[in-house]
């Protein structure tokens, strides 16, 4: 899937990813390829991204939004 993480300070991540684990208002969720379209409000915590090479990257998130678009496109707006 293609993952983008934007913040008001700039783009934090833009590229292919295998997996995204992120805390949301209704609980922590993991997004993999071909997830159903979803819009969710994220919560304070740690977003974990497994990039194309299988390495894990961590991003601190205060609040924000998650959008899973059809076609395995994932967008995170973080603060």
């Amino acid at each position, binding site marked *: 899937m293609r993952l*983008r993480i*934007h*913040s*008001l*300070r*700039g*783009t934090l991540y833009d590229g292919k990813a295998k997996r995204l684990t992120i805390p*949301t*208002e*209704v609980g922590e969720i993991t997004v993999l390829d071909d997830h*159903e*379209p*979803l*819009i*969710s*409000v994220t919560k304070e915590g740690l977003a974990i991204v497994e990039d194309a090479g299988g390495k894990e990257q961590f991003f601190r998130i205060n*609040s924000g*939004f998650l*959008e899973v*678009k*059809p076609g395995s496109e994932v*967008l995170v*707006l973080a*603060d």
Partner: protein
Amino acid sequence: MASLTHLKKRLSGIKSINQITAAMELVAATKMRKAQEVALGTRAYAWSALELLSHIIKSLEEHAPEGLFHIPLLTRREAKKTAIVVVTSDKGLVGSFNSSVLRRLEKFLKEETNPHNWENVTFIAVGQKGADYVKKRGGVLHHVFTSYGDVIRLDQISELASEIVDGYLEGIWDEVLVFSANFISALRQEAVMRELLPMDFESVKNSIREVVPETGRYSDLKKEMLESSEGRPLDYVIEPSPRDALEKLLPHLLRIQIYDIMLEANASEHSARRVAMKNASDNAGELIGNLTLLYNRSRQELITKELTEITSTVAAINPMGN
């Protein structure tokens, strides 16, 4: 003819002024570029947030149209009280930057069809110059925010944004207008009025689009931004609920909008200052040229006079010339 020492003093004074204005010109140019860069850095976030908003609204319209009603930030109510945010600079030496914003405000308050005047409006001033002006005109100042002049931090914006939103939700004011400078190019800025609250999708979109200048560096980004992926009907699952998501997203968007307005005012301030300082440096250069000419001429005149005196004295002592 002015005395030589006097001329010399003036000349050195003007030279140091020239140095200062030239330095200020360079500093302002750098700050302007910085403000523009920061503004463009917010672009990806702002554009994605807008797209997200349009998806949520579309999904609400399809599945639960009644959910769109009664969201306070979007609902226009009778405007009994108005808050006006005046965005100016803290310091002077910016040419007509502040006066054009204040003139726009003055013109707006004078319009006959307009129920607002200096007495019945609450002012929030960003920048000392605007605050001073409102005080002088006898307006009610709710809050003054200063030191927004150099590239501003996000937390400064959050303070201003939450004050505007809280005041609106608590009913202290029913609409919020912003008077600020719109950055068109390094040589052209325009004073504009924008409506901040109640929020309107189109006006948010416009402010975000306006961050990209029309000409000069970065202007080619404009085309790329205008293409957006609207119009795709999508079936989203929205958690916790569309309404909650919308209520969370709107203050964010408002903050982005305010941030963009401030950054734009910032870029405008610095480019106005750059132009003003360039004019000052040019004038100083011209003065230096004229004064140097005058100085040299008086010096030569003095020498000629002394020589004449010496030769005439010699001639008087020794009339035969040997």
